[in-house]
């Protein structure tokens, strides 16, 4: 065991830090996922990702021929930590960077990699995830959006729902049913759909936060080239799970928790309760320390997994808990912050008296959304028990 970074890595970290200090957009993007999502916002968000990419700080571990730098995962994790530390805006191309990209690198054809990966990096093409349907959420494999093969095209009909970012996405990685006769896991294919194709209708849905974050997406005879199939026909389930693995690690990321804890701590220091800072309140102190312990455990847990990755070891049950623990922890952190704010937690984020720039009311709600999105906590527990511990299935 050796927890030191090499000298080169430390220098690299300082370089990243200096770059971020200089270049982070000062305003207009927000530090969460909110934002009013008009055209100007979108352009600013894309410009930020592009700038970061040009500086060499996006997808460092990706292969060189597709715009990456083939660096080891430590560099990427240093960048991730620094982005969080600097409270950098959320990357608009996250679904492509964190979910589709890694999937394509493992499963895509050379042509697909060449065609799609570079534009993911530069935010020229924004991706959304077309998995959930009205009748298929937790039971994703029951999905019914149909794709029939006609000549060298798929013709897609059906509906997706809760599709985050579809309102501004150019492309969707989408699960479709290509064999309705086969058992449910064996008739699914993974295809890439251009969102500007005729026959696609996107209808924004308002979230409990009041923002338009996700959408309904309708497909009416939408034509998709056969070459947009990822993996084999009717074998999309395995590709879908590869993406889910990346998604769940992203949602449960420990660096986000650490930053939220620091923010919570600063908030608690600034709040006066009974004539002293809340951090000196014996009860709240315990609560804070308990949260910090959990955050620290997840941070170290991430280092352990990073090490396994470098050593080329396949992730096991320890990775299955990332999404469950990470998202519940983030929600606990936000809930603690709401409590810390006392009466001010009754205020909406845009009230001028809202503490900490109104960050927490939104975070409190959104973090609950992420306990649901990407597979709910209940489903994560089923996976841990059934796939991880091999306990008998009840379904």
């Amino acid at each position, binding site marked *: 065991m050796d927890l030191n970074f090499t000298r080169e890595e430390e220098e690299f970290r300082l370089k990243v830090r200096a770059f971020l200090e200089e270049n982070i957009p000062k305003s207009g993007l927000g530090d969460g996922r909110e934002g009013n999502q008009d055209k100007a916002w979108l352009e600013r968000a894309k410009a930020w990702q592009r700038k970061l990419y040009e500086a060499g700080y996006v997808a460092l571990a990706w292969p060189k021929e597709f715009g990456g730098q083939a660096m080891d995962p430590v560099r990427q994790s240093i960048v991730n930590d620094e982005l969080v530390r600097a409270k950098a805006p959320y990357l608009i191309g996250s679904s492509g960077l964190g979910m589709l990209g890694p999937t394509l690198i493992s499963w895509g054809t050379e042509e697909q990699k060449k065609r799609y990966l570079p534009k993911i990096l530069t935010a020229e093409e924004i991706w959304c995830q077309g998995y959930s349907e009205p009748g298929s959420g*937790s039971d994703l494999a029951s999905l019914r959006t149909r794709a029939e093969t006609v000549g060298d095209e798929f013709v897609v009909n059906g509906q997706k729902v809760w599709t985050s970012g579809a309102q501004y996405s150019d492309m969707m990685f989408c699960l479709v049913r290509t064999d309705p006769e086969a058992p449910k896991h064996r008739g699914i294919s993974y295809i890439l759909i251009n969102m500007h194709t005729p026959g696609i209708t996107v209808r924004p*849905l308002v*979230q409990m936060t009041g923002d338009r974050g996700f959408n309904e997406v309708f497909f009416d005879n939408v034509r998709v080239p056969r070459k947009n199939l990822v993996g084999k026909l009717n074998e999309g389930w395995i590709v879908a799970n590869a993406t889910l693995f990346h998604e769940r690690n992203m949602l449960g990321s420990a660096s986000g928790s650490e930053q939220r804890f620091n923010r919570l701590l600063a908030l608690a220091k600034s709040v006066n309760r009974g004539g002293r800072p809340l951090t000196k309140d014996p009860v709240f102190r315990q609560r804070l320390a308990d949260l910090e312990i959990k955050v620290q455990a997840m941070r170290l847990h991430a280092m352990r997994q990073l090490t396994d990755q470098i050593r080329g070891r396949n992730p096991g049950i320890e990775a299955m808990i990332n999404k469950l623990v990470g998202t519940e922890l983030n929600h606990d952190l936000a809930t603690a912050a709401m409590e810390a704010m*006392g*009466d001010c937690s*009754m205020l909406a984020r845009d*009230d001028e008296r809202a503490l900490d720039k109104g960050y927490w009311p939104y975070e409190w709600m959104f973090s*609950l959304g992420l*306990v649901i999105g990407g597979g709910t906590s*209940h489903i994560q527990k089923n996976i841990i028990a059934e796939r991880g511990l091999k306990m008998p299935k009840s379904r």
Partner: protein
Amino acid sequence: MDFGLSDEQLQLKQSARELLAAECSTAAVRKAMASEDGTLPELYREIAKLGWTGLIVPEKFGGAALGMLDMAVLLEEQGYAAMPGPFLFSSAVAAEAIIRGGSDEAREKWLGGIADGSAIGTVALAEDAGSIAVVAKKGGRLSGRGIFVPYANLADFIVVAARSEDGQVAMTLVETKAAGVTIRMLKNLDLTRRLAAVDFDDAAGASLSGGESLYRRLLDVGAVAIAADSLGGMQRALDMAVDYSKVREQFGKPIGSFQALKHAAAEIVADLEPARSLVWYAAYALDAIPSEASRAAAMAKARLCEVYSRATDRAVLMHGGIGFTWEHDIHLWFKRARFNESYLGSPAYHRERVAQLGGY
């Protein structure tokens, strides 16, 4: 021994449930949420006719002269419906202030109006005496700021916890139209309620008798009222999650057939039913067991608000993606629970009171 609601109280509860199901559907609640004032004026008139607004007001002022347990029964149903408007603050807390501390003149002036719905009162109470930020000069003139004052926009008067120049708690009634009263609305997370910041600049008020003991009494009444509202809201969140679990299917079965959801629902019930008893006891104690009233109120507020928040949080999860939408109603209770938890003192604050009043 008889620890249960009377037939009359059960009837009151039932008729309140039915009335609010008809007149305070979530469509109506959403109308109030989107409105400026945050209330449903017609519903308010209707419940006034039914005698709700004067429930605890003495008969000679047109009230029903009932007790806090009856009030708790009504408030529970209002919580169940997420009823918007000033009822809790006016007819439970402000009414109590005038009944207990008002001069004959103040009682004459306000109680009839509260009872028939033509007058609305509210309260500006800091949750602990140490943080009172309004100063009362001799003769009841007020200066300072009362923040988080519910429905000051609709109120005719505000019962203000102030501090006299000699440091005593001075409960003072101020009319909102008095010179020197400035009301500014805050933006609420829970849109089924409205809050304001009220500035007093040498505003003329009338002293209420009772000082610190009246102040404590109002905090206790308010705590029990919020606890009762929470009880109803929690029941509603549970009902919604359970109903949904019976109709939503995944894996070819109703999701309610999965143990994860059964256990989640059962845990809510296991929190809810003992908590119901805390509310009944606290409400009863306010009228019948003065020596226990404050501690019972603190217990009810601490416990109910904690379990209400937890139950609504898990109820959102039990709905999956649809629970995270604006369109679905579950967030109304999720956010109302947040309000209830903070208003008039957090669970942590009330647990501390339980310990202090218990002498440990």
